[in-house]
């Protein structure tokens, strides 16, 4: 049985709390079952891997909390502390020298979810 790690970031003591929309969503995650996205917290240890990739390996200057991955383009969806959603590639480092003020992002979880369900973000 895989231990559920959907809220793993709360135990990191980095001053991050998950947004309400996400907390509601994880009660019915099957909504995205028809897309290429899945919640990384469903795979034991994978949140830790993704967290370390974005924040340590790719040396992000902004705290990023990964929560979903797409198998289509190996992209991670990550929250920042203001609950904006950024996309981060697993395959190449686009984070180290990121221009966060101008980098593309979704304004919140629901904006990201809406695009995912429409098939616009794969």
């Amino acid at each position, binding site marked *: 049985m*895989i231990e559920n790690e959907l809220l793993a970031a709360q135990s990191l003591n980095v001053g991050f709390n998950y947004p309400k929309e996400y907390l509601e969503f994880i009660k019915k995650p099957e909504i995205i*079952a*028809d*897309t*290429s996205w*899945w*919640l990384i917290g*469903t*795979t*034991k*240890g*994978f949140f830790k*891997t*993704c967290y370390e*990739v974005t924040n340590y390996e790719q040396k992000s200057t902004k705290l990023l909390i990964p929560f979903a*991955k797409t*198998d*289509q*383009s*190996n*992209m991670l969806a990550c929250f920042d502390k203001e609950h904006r959603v*950024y*996309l*981060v*590639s*697993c*395959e190449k480092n*686009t984070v180290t020298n*990121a221009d966060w003020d101008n*980098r*593309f992002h979704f304004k919140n979880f629901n904006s990201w979810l809406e695009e995912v369900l429409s*098939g*616009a*973000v*794969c």
Partner: protein
Amino acid sequence: MFAQETEYWERPNGAAERKAFIDLMDKIDSKVFAPIRATKDSVTGYFERSNTTYMKHCERLGIQPDYTKPLFAAPMLAKVAMSPIPDTLGETVAVTALTAATKPVLFAGKQAIKTGAKLFTKGEAAGAAVVARGGGNAIIKQVNSIEIRFSQSTVSATKVRYDDITGNKFIYTFDEIVNSMKTNGWQGEPINVVKMPDGSLTAIYNTRLLAARKAGIDAKVKIHDYDAAIPKADARNYTAEGKLEPKTWGEAISTRISVQHDKYFQDRIFAEKFPNGSSYDPKLISRRPK
């Protein structure tokens, strides 16, 4: 005329001059004409072997050979296009002539012909050709795409790439990949394949393999042993929903196969009926199945 020539060579130093002249002609022959003769043999030999390989290639695909098309040698050229090239003066001479002689059918440049001649000389043209060694014990090869099995029951008909910096979206279709392969051969990096416990090869990513089959070209693959450790950077790419992060290439491919729950060839469940991968083509779908 004959008498004059006889008299000329019978002068006191005529014999020495004659020998010097013959030596000079021998040197010219070895320096100039011998490479040309070798080139001619290489060219004719290359195309004789190409024809044989092409016929085997058609036989494998179950298609009728078509010699009316100038590009009939393309499958073989595509296969050798990405091979390493040992440089020697002799080969350079031969390659220059080969390139000129085969320009109408050559889309991969002179390196393809050069290496192709070398590969065919080794008798490797009809089988998998070792191209290079990848990281760890991985070997990069050109392999007949029909000989590699799939690890997925479906392949997306439309591929989407999303630029995480600009937010720009790039869409390309499976048919576009096939057409590109028909025109340009295999482009880009090799795909990762795993040598399964039963000895055969199974691909982790399936789209380009299926496209190579449809295009009738060989696939460029990086072959990993089943028990070989998988690098962290690859492991996270192959981590599947609800499964542990793979530690070996074998775990990565088995994980991928294990999440293929939908019905497949003759209504079989992929993961149950094809635990080592399947030789049957995956279904092309517009969206991921539930």
